[in-house]
């Protein structure tokens, strides 16, 4: 298990409901892969530095979670499948040994 952070850029055309359901799907993937969501940080609508798919704005959401390193691929696959996600980046937080997961 490692600690990861993913920044997702949603289309500005989505309303709150559609975006939350897309986000919920991603959270479900993490939970299905026996991960743990630590925090969800919504940055809100922001102007982009350059147009993406001809849109000048986008909605950023930052997810922080614990996940098995092999399951991250599966998680990213689901992000790619989700429509209306323009861009994402996943970053490892901390050293691998820094995170100790308690077994229940």
């Amino acid at each position, binding site marked *: 298990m490692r600690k990861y952070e993913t*920044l997702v850029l949603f289309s500005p055309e989505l309303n709150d409901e559609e975006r939350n359901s897309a986000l919920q799907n991603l959270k479900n993937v993490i939970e299905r892969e026996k991960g743990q969501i630590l925090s969800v940080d919504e940055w809100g609508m922001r102007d*982009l*530095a350059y147009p*993406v798919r001809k849109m*000048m704005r986008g909605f950023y959401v930052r997810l922080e979670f614990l996940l098995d390193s092999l399951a991250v691929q599966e998680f990213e696959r689901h992000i790619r499948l989700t429509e209306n996600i323009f*861009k994402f980046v996943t*970053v490892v937080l901390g050293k691998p040994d820094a995170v100790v997961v308690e077994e229940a």
Partner: protein
Amino acid sequence: MSFKKKFTPKKKFCRFCANTELPLDYKRPDILSEFITDRGKIIARRITGTCAKHQRSLTTQIKRARQMALLFYTATHASYVRKKSTL
């Protein structure tokens, strides 16, 4: 020689070493933008004075920020240039 005495450049220092609380993070385009030119190029560390260790991570953070449209790759494609041209 006289001109050497007149011009003594200020000693440069690594801003990330001097202030450990200054975050070096792709999520902070406001800080990263101080280390790129207005055309979007990463400024060499001989000019900014950043140490080798921090310059290395600075480049990766800038590139991540570009990926996520937090910083622009080139000024011609940047939003603020486009806004001006459409006006």
